[in-house]
């Protein structure tokens, strides 16, 4: 275990490298509300927020509930001259289910439903013990790493903007009405944005480490503060 501010340039203990520009920084435990930025490229290194873990867990559960609504309720309805059609999120994904376009269905369902759900579950799994000051669950490290790796591929918010564009495109062709799933999806975007604002990967890695995963004795423990 290290005391705060002590570092070793031969092993790298007590140091943090900026992931964007590789500049070395001496690690320090931040107070909630503080933000650490790289001295060279200004990238945010860590920004712990008070109660962030509990909030992320709450927001993840909210997004799971909303996703159930978004998947099973009708999404959009269209009608013209007595002909009508209603579609759910599954219907949208299945639009590509003919022949060669089949793989796109899987990718589409994955990026708008599967990955957001998986990320919410992984975040809850990682943060639930940490928010109660317990040891992290087994495999919390790969779980959180997977969640971070999947972040750019979860495209729910892009899908909502796509919906807006599609609606304007068919606006002149037929009457359109929104189903509950559409509103659930809009709410989901806000919830995800709030959750992302609270997530600071460096802080979560630090918390996993402090909560007792073996990492070569490099963690800075609060009671060992200089």
């Amino acid at each position: 275990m290290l005391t705060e501010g002590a570092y070793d340039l031969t092993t790298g203990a007590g140091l943090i490298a900026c992931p964007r520009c590789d500049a070395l920084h001496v690690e320090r435990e931040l107070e909630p509300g503080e933000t650490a930025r790289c001295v060279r490229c200004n990238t945010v290194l860590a920004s712990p927020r008070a109660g962030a873990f509990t909030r992320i867990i709450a927001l993840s559960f909210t997004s799971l509930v909303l996703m159930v609504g978004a998947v099973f309720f009708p999404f959009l309805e269209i009608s013209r001259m007595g002909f009508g059609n209603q579609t759910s999120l599954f219907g949208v994904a299945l639009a590509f289910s003919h022949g060669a376009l089949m793989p796109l269905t899987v990718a589409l369902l994955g990026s708008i439903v599967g990955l957001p759900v998986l990320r919410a579950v992984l975040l809850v799994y990682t943060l639930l013990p940490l928010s109660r000051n317990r040891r992290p669950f087994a495999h919390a490290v790969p779980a959180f790493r997977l969640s971070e790796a999947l972040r750019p591929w979860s495209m729910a918010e892009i899908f909502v903007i796509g919906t807006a564009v599609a609606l304007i495109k068919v606006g002149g062709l037929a009457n359109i009405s929104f189903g509950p799933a559409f509103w659930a999806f809009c709410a989901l975007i806000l919830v995800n944005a709030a959750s992302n604002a609270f997530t600071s990967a460096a802080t979560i890695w630090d918390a996993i480490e402090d909560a007792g995963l073996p990492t070569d004795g490099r963690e800075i423990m609060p009671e060992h503060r200089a």
Partner: protein
Amino acid sequence: MTPGQDQHAPVMTAHRAGLAGCRGCGRVWPESETICARCGGALVPPDRRCLNAVWAWLAAGLIFYVPANLFPMLKTSVFGGLRGSSESTILGGVVELIHYGNYWVAAVIFVASIVVPLGKFIAISWLALVAGRPATVRQAHKRLVLYEIVEFIGRWSMIDVFVVAILSALVQLGFVASIHPGPAAVSFALSVAFTMLSAQSFDPRLIWRGLPLRSRKDPE
């Protein structure tokens, strides 16, 4: 907070100190380590090896971008084809939207499907070409901003694929009007995914590798 707090002084990096910094969590390890013991991520030295992957994914993205523009994105038929059935490519769709006066939507589709992908191809190629070359601090900052824009904006090109999916699921009014997706949708989605992978393979630390060890005549 750093050895080298001052902006003007050359900054000590993990690589110069003979250490390896983890790109996932920031922990610093001796250069001999290959896996970060904290987050389990691979420790990769910031060298030009990553550029192979960047060029490979970029080429794949570029290849799939060609059929994405040549083949139809949407097949529309109105009144069972009596009022004409049309197949529109990406550019054709934009022209059609302008024709109907939907300038705003036309602009969104044009930017998301043509300007952004082409801009990304150019930006990534440029970043990969100048990576590791000498640069001033100001140039390096500019390159990093460009990289962050490319990284952020890449996913938004998917918007056109989602539009096609929603339209073809929704507009199934039998005889009156129906819309079906065309083969361009798949190649466009693949092109976007490959360019995203290309941007992710680029190591932004290379931008800073080009800085001279001692700042000679930096205007900063």
